[in-house]
């Protein structure tokens, strides 16, 4: 027989345990401790800022607690079994110790460990079922702000139908309406393939399926910027299909809406940039309200500069980035549908100068 290093057993056991516990323990420690060195930009489901996300977190804690107890008990039993019932003489197979008692089983014990999991499952089922019906609203709550969200490869369109404008990349919502918490009801549609709308701090994800309309309910608790991204693989730039949600105070939101409702700013100083833009193929895909550009395949640029990001969030909206993007979007977002327009440097500058006036 092969040798068995005698001490190895216990060490093995502890190491197994340690290794399998390390990840969950680290998780628990890092995620639960508010002082942990997480970035403010971390879209953690443990840091909810919206009613449905809080409800989900409550249920999550319950299921984590149950599973953690089972995990610890079972790993403990495994380790205990190995330590306690290890063959005493390492070199020996069975020669002098003989075989242990052969126990076939025990109906009562087996019945017990069938019934206990059933009980746990039953309770967990009841609680989760309540959660599902609470969170998954199929009808807009009374007074909700309704926004139509359309997933495109690889950017998000936010259509504020009732308010009469459409924007991209950044979803702006108010915290309150007349001082009361404001529900936001998103209608999710896709223009091409399946996407998924996921902003963990505001709620669970909901897939955006072509040929189908889905709904997602949010109710923010705090102002701020919350990030998320497409969570269903949708092609080359799936990773670049980011979501930014900005939750405003009521007044700020109203001001933002009032600005968005205006047509594009018209500044004679940059009129040549505008004319150049309108003479290129840009207008086949982009809309700039108040001009002849009315394409729908790409983001509405009417208030481009009111957004803080470009390319659905892959880069910040700064003048340099804007120039680089117009020069060759494939650099920042390889594979995206916008081609390099093969403009000269001067033309790029002129178009960007005009774009920068679109507040």
């Amino acid at each position, binding site marked *: 027989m092969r040798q068995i290093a005698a001490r190895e057993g216990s060490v*093995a056991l502890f190491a197994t345990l340690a290794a399998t516990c390390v990840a969950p323990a680290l998780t628990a420690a890092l995620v639960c401790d508010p002082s942990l060195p997480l970035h403010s930009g971390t879209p953690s*489901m443990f840091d909810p800022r919206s009613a449905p996300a809080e409800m989900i977190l409550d249920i999550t804690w319950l299921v984590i607690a149950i599973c953690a107890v089972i995990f610890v008990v079972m790993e403990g039993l495994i380790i205990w079994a190995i330590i306690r019932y290890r063959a005493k003489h390492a070199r020996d197979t069975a020669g002098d110790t003989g075989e242990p008692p052969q126990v076939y089983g025990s109906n009562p014990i087996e019945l017990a460990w069938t019934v206990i999991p059933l009980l746990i499952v039953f309770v967990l089922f009841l609680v989760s079922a309540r959660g599902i019906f609470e969170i998954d609203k199929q009808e807009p709550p009374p007074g909700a702000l309704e926004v139509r969200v359309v997933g495109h490869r690889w950017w998000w369109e936010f259509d504020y139908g009732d308010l009469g404008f459409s924007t991209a990349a950044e979803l702006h919502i108010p915290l309150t309406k007349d001082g009361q918490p404001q529900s936001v009801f998103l209608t999710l549609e896709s223009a091409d393939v399946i996407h998924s709308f996921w902003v963990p701090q505001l709620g669970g994800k909901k897939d955006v399926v072509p040929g189908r309309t889905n709904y997602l309910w949010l109710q923010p608790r705090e102002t701020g910027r919350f990030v998320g991204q497409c969570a269903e693989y949708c092609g080359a730039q799936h990773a670049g299909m980011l979501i930014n949600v900005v939750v405003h105070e009521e007044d700020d939101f109203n001001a933002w809406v009032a600005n968005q409702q205006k047509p594009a700013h018209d500044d004679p100083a940059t009129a040549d940039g505008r004319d150049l833009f309108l003479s290129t193929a840009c207008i086949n895909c982009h809309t700039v309200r108040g001009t002849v550009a009315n394409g729908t395949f790409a983001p509405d640029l009417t208030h481009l500069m009111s957004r803080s990001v470009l390319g659905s969030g892959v880069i910040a909206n700064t003048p340099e980035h804007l120039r680089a993007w117009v020069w060759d979007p494939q650099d920042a977002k390889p594979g995206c549908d916008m081609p390099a327009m093969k403009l000269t440097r001067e033309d790029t500058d002129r178009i960007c100068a005009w774009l920068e006036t679109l507040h």
Partner: protein
Amino acid sequence: MSSSPVRPDLSPPLSRLHEWVVTVDHKRLGVMYIVTGLVFFLIGGFEAAMMRWQLAWPGLDIVMPEDFNRLFTMHGTTMVFLVGMPILLGSANYLVPLMIGTRDMAFPRLNAFGFWLFFFGGALLYFSYFGAQGLYGMGSAPDVGWFAYAPLTERTFSRGHSTDYWILGLMVSGFGSIATGINLVTTILCMRCTGMRLMKMPLFVWIMLVDAILIVVAMPPLAAAQVMLLFDRSLGAHFFDVQAGGSAVLWQNLFWFFGHPEVYILILPAFAFVSEIIPVFSRKVLFGYPLMVAATVTIGFISMGVWVHHMFAIGLSPAVNTLFMASTMLIGVPTGIKMFNWVATMFGGRIRLHTPMLFSIGFLAQFLFGGLTGVMLAVVPFDWQVSDSYFVVGHFHYVLFGGLIFSIFAAIYYWFPKVSGRMLSEALGKWQFWLLLIGFNLTFGPMHVSGMLGMPRRIYTYQLDRGWEIWNLLSSIGVLFQALAIAFFIWNVIRSLQRGTPAGDDPWDAWTLEWSTTSPPPAWNFDTDPEVRSRRPLWDAKHPDDPDWKYE
């Protein structure tokens, strides 16, 4: 006439190759399945390593986005269809006839046919790397994800032929799996030796029976769905074409109606391996055999009714979600029963920590974690947060890598002596075990964290401000340990084949019939037809004063 078709007109290496190519021997086919599976395992592992390298830090440019998408598509497809399936079919092929005391499978030629279909199907899939006309010219592997969600797979969004290769390669190897599944069920139900009633079969055989039945019923719906997709792509049909009234959700239903039983098809063999190994190394009979059989059959049945839990986030009605949440949680119960019974088998035993047992314990510890995160994912509200995130990636790697692959290594260390006649090195085996254990947990543990911190799966890079760097870095470092572990394994196999200790017929003092014949077993398996009276025929032979049949 000799048992091997030696062709004297061929040179020795060619003659040997010829022997293997024309063989219908279940043992040779089993070995071919497993070796092919392990080769694909290395390929799939390489693809995974490339992905981890790219993701080690935000904004890296190791591979292009399109190439990354091909990598994860091919990695997933390879690991499920070209690693998990052949290794499970191969081990069933090798062991089932030996365990039930017969000379070969029920349909030996069909068996060879099944293997070659799998083999050429896999080759066809990988040929896409060279032959598929992609958007950018020749050479483009599929990039639609292993579950190939429509309408991304439709011609509009997936040009070229790469997705067709995915369909055809998997369809061909799927036919092979169905053939082998039919063969296995027939073998088990028709070829058992004298005295081996159903409830006297080793649990391995029971589990493989359920597994094979699942293959027979779950693979055809996938083939049907793939045919529809193929018609969409090549004949202009509209099954998944949303513009023409087709449905994107239909593909998901069809795929997961296959896909979830498939998950159990993959994990059941792991149960089968450890159900043989843990008793032998604990020196105790398996605890609660009848309940284990019942749990296996229950898992088989329920696994056909849980597929919607992959689709909790697609906007089905709350009632449907609730229903499938119930069935999904319910399937955790028989799985839990198995877990308890394995641990109870260890209790009161005399446990020997040889490498097979170490890997089995690794399986228990890690599959437990994967199983529990599975229960968590069944809770729909939690699933809404973490489905399609790295949490799910971590979860199923704990099941399929921490569970299945660990149990496969346990099985390799356990049955290698029977197959080759030589022992694998225990020392190298332990190096491999510890390195793999550390590497595995280091890679896949942090994924649960990054998933809960909002990191979706299948992204080729991520933003710097998300706070996911450390977790991804840890994951990527773990790959180094795993690669080292696999290197130890390869070295161990090569070394042991050349100068391993001769194994003898029964190196582990085990109890099932395969250990009563020589190592390696002759082409005819047994000199005389075995007769069994209990689940442990070799126990009866070793302890004639106290045999099992007195009590069963």
